[in-house]
């Protein structure tokens, strides 16, 4: 049963997505910058280091508790830039609109984007607008691209990760994915859950002020914490171990996960980051994160270990140890 068609599972951010990207999509364009497959592409020109990134947003439903596709689009791209240690400067915004899409909704979304851009202190300087026939796009799809500058002494990438480094998460996991799921058809629960969608560039700036030993940053979007930790572990070489009890998880997200049989470690987040930092600086960095509005629940959740290589272990609440694997299949389609 060889795959001849794209499956929904190819979009969920887990193993299948990786394979599609690495084996099919990257091939025709292969080059040294692209091959690194980081959140942002980093290149130097005229003695300046730039970060450049792009993202498309297809979230369903378009409006969800705590945000909408517009806010997601701005924050998503700002965060990709911030994760490479860049100061985000400018964004583009391309809209694909379905015939029949209400103008009122479009205005709401654009206003959301404006607000998010203000919060992040970036400007949208170019864009494009297309309209397609009914049924050819689900209301609205948004693509954003962004560019930022990285200070020359800032070097943040998986290749900086060292054994002994501590792993920090800046807030509660699973909020975004569960909030979106709760709005979807067929899921009958009402929750107080809101998406955590937020721009993290100012959080990163604060962290960089406080320490020069931040080795790697990632925002766990599709595929959640499990996907991100596994990717980083595979790219950098050593293993990781995290403690379930230390990972911030809201009661409602935990309850929703139990009800749906979904692992909260695989659920998307849009307003938290994972930081891999020098063990001596970890406490100082966590304290700094907690002083910001986006990081009140930050915790050190684990560390980088020499063995097993390229794998992530989880010490469970009850005291056992298991592997935290890369997600497979379509856990939550159209989550961002």
């Amino acid at each position: 049963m060889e795959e001849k068609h794209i499956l929904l599972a190819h979009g969920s951010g887990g193993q299948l997505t990786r394979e599609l990207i690495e084996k099919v999509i990257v091939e025709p364009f292969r080059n040294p910058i692209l091959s690194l497959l980081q959140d942002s592409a980093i290149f130097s020109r005229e003695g300046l280091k730039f970060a450049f990134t792009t993202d498309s947003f297809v979230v369903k439903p378009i409006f969800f508790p705590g945000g909408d596709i517009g806010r997601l689009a701005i924050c998503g791209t700002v965060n990709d830039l911030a994760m490479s240690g860049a100061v985000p400067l400018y964004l583009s915004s391309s809209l694909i609109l379905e015939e029949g899409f209400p103008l009122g909704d479009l205005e709401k979304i654009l206003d959301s984007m404006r607000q998010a851009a203000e919060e992040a202190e970036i400007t949208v300087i170019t864009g494009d607008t297309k309209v397609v026939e009914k049924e050819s796009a689900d209301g609205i799809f948004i693509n954003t691209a962004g560019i930022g500058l990285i200070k020359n002494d800032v070097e943040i990438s998986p290749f900086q990760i060292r054994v002994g480094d501590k792993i920090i998460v800046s807030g509660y996991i699973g909020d975004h994915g569960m909030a979106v799921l709760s709005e979807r058809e067929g899921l009958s629960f009402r929750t107080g859950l809101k998406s955590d969608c937020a721009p993290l560039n100012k959080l990163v700036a604060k962290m960089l002020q406080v320490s020069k030993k931040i080795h790697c940053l990632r925002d766990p979007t599709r595929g959640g914490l499990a996907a991100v930790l596994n990717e980083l572990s595979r790219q950098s070489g050593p293993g990781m171990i995290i403690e379930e009890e230390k990972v911030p998880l809201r009661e409602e997200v935990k309850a929703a996960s139990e009800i749906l049989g979904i692992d909260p470690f695989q659920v998307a987040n849009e307003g938290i980051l994972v930081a891999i930092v020098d063990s001596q600086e970890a406490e100082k960095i966590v304290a700094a994160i907690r002083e910001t509005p986006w990081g009140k629940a930050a915790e050190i959740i684990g560390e980088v270990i020499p063995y097993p290589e390229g794998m992530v272990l989880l010490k469970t609440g009850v005291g056992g140890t298991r592997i935290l694997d890369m997600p497979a299949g379509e856990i939550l389609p159209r989550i961002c």
Partner: protein
Amino acid sequence: MCLGIPARIIKIEGDRAEVEAGGIIQTALLTLLPDVQVGDYVILHAGFAIQKIDEQEALETLRLLESLN
């Protein structure tokens, strides 16, 4: 797939109930468990309440485990 979680009944309307678990509120069908009251804890499976949780038994099990040394 015997996924079932404990939930508390907060409102009953005919054969439907509103139940709460960890702050999440859901609708559950009571067709298989007609004799329940508001405040009871039940096991929820695929949108249905399938059995009541006997809180005395639950406490007894925990007491037994606590007493091990």
